[in-house]
C-alpha cells in the first residue's frame, strides 16, 4: 500500500540562542534565516516512509529532535529543507489542552476543540457521551463549570479524550501517555490499542520503553537530529540503550 507519511531529506534549523538582533528591514527583505552563524539543525537529512497501519516509535535522548520531527509531520512547523508529505488526516496529541479556553465551560470547550480539528457540531453531538465517558466521572459532574476550575489531570484527560475521538487515520503522540493517574493510564493504553487495532497509523514519541515496546513495531532512532537507525523497535531501543550507556559517547 502507498505510504501515508513520506519524509524526504527533511531538515529544520533553529537559532542556538533566542536573543537575536534582527532589524525589521532585514527580516522583511532578506528573510530571517540569513543569520546562519548561530544556527543549528534540529533535524536534518531525515528520509523515511511510513505505511498505513504502521506503529512507529521515535527513540532518542532529550534534544535529539524527536518533538521537532513530530511537529513537522503535524504541519505545525515548516521544514527549511526537504519535504514531508502526509497523505491522510492527522490527529495530533501534542499540546493537549492548547485549544481549551479557561473561561468557557468544559462543554463549550469540547465543541470548540473538536471543531478546531474538523468535527462538525453534529459529529460532536454524536460522540459527546463517549468523550465525556472516557474523561471520567469527575469531568462529567463538572461539565458546566469553567474549564479553569479543572485540575490539571482532569484537563489533560479531557484533551486526550477529545483528540482520540477524531477520525483521522494518523495519530501523532508526544509524551502524553505518561499523564493522569494509574487508572487513566490504563484507560489510555486500552484506547491506543483499540486505535491500532482499527488500523490507524501511530507515530509515538516517548521515553518509556514499556510504552514503546507495547505499541510500536518499528523504531526510528534519532541522535543529534539525524536518523541513525531505522529498524524494529527492539533493535532501535537496543542501539539507543547501548549508546546512552556508553561513557562519553559521540552525542556529548
Amino acid at each position, binding site marked *: 500500500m502507498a505510504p501515508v507519511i513520506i519524509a524526504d531529506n527533511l531538515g*529544520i534549523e*533553529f*537559532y542556538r540562542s*533566542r536573543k537575536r538582533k*534582527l532589524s*525589521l528591514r532585514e*527580516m*522583511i527583505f532578506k*528573510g*530571517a*534565516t540569513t543569520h546562519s552563524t548561530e544556527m543549528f539543525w534540529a533535524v536534518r537529512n531525515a528520509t523515511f516512509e511510513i505505511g498505513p497501519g504502521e506503529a512507529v516509535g521515535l527513540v532518542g535522548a532529550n534534544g535529539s529532535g524527536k518533538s521537532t520531527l513530530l*511537529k513537522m509531520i*503535524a*504541519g*505545525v*512547523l*515548516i521544514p*527549511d529543507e526537504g519535504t514531508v508529505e502526509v497523505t491522510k488526516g*492527522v490527529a*495530533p496529541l*501534542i*499540546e493537549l*489542552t*492548547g*485549544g481549551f*479556553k479557561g*473561561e*468557557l465551560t468544559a462543554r*463549550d470547550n469540547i*465543541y*470548540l476543540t473538536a*471543531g*478546531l*480539528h*474538523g468535527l*462538525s457540531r453534529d459529529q460532536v453531538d454524536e460522540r459527546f457521551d463517549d468523550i465525556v465517558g472516557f474523561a471520567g466521572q469527575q469531568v462529567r459532574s463538572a461539565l458546566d463549570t469553567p474549564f479553569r476550575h479543572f485540575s490539571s489531570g482532569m484537563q489533560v484527560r479531557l484533551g486526550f479524550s477529545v483528540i482520540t475521538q477524531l477520525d483521522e487515520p494518523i495519530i501523532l503522540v508526544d509524551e502524553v501517555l505518561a499523564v493522569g493517574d494509574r487508572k487513566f493510564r490504563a484507560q489510555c493504553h486500552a484506547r491506543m490499542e483499540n486505535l491500532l487495532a482499527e488500523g490507524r497509523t501511530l507515530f509515538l514519541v516517548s521515553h518509556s520503553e514499556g510504552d514503546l515496546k507495547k505499541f510500536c513495531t518499528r523504531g526510528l532512532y534519532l541522535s543529534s537530529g539525524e536518523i541513525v537507525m531505522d529498524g524494529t523497535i527492539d533493535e532501535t531501543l537496543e542501539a539507543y540503550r547501548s549508546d546512552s550507556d556508553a561513557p562519553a559517547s559521540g552525542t556529548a
Partner: protein
Amino acid sequence: MSLASRTGAVWRRREVVRTLVVRDLQVRYQRSWLGYVWTVLDPLAMSAIYFLVFVGIFKRGDVGHKPYFLFLVIGLLSWQWFSGTLTDTARSLLQDAKLVRSTNLPREVWVVRVVLAKGIEYVYSLPVLALFAIAYGLRGDVHFSWRLVLLPLGVALQFFLLVGIGLLLAPVTALVTDMQRVIRILLRMAFYATPVIYAQLKVPHPWNRILELNPMTGVLELQRAGFFREGLQVRAVLVSVVASVLIFLLGSWTFTRLERSVLKEI
C-alpha cells in the same frame, strides 16, 4: 503557495473561523453582560467629549459635517474597530500560541478571525448609530440619501484593509515583541491623521492631499456618505481601494515570508 491557493485554504476552513469567532464573542460577553454596553459606550463617551470640546467650548462644530455629533459617532465606531483590530491582530499569533502550535490550520486564520470578531462587534453597534441617525433625522438635521448603500461597501473595504494590515503586523509582532508598543504609539498618531473628528473637506491645502493617502479616509467617506449633504470625495475612495489592495498584497507576502520563523519562535 500562491495567494489564491492560500485564500482558498482559509475559505475551506471557514467553519473553524466561525467557531473561533463565536468563541471570542462568547468569552467577551460571558465575562460580563456589560460587554455589549462597553463596545458602544467607549465611542459614545469619546463622541460626547469631542462634541463638548469642539462645539460646547470652542464653537468649532464646523470642522466636521452637520450634525456634528452623528458625524463623530460614525467616525469613532469605525475607528474603534480599526484600532481594536490592530492591537489584537498584532498579538494574534502570540496570544493563542498554544493553539497555533498544535493545530495545522492555514495560519492566516488567526488574523482573519480577529478582524471578523471585531467587525461583528462593529456591526452590533450599528443599531446605536441608527438610533442617533433617526433621532437627528426626526429633527430634520440629517440629509439621508441613496448613498446609504455605500455604508456596507465602506465596511467591506475596511475589513479588507484590516486583513491586509493584520497579515503584516501579526508575524512581525510575533518576532519583535516591542512592536506592540510601537503600534500603540502609531495608532494614537494615526487617529489624528485620519478624518475621524474632522472632515477631510475642511482640511486646508496641501494637508488635504496628504490626508487622501490615508486609506481610512476613503473608508470613512463611504461610511458617512449617506447621512450628510457634503459630496463624496471620490478620489479619496479610489486611493483607499488601491492602497488596501497594495497593503493586502504586502501583508500576504510578508506573512508567507515570515511564517516559518514565527512558528519556530512561538
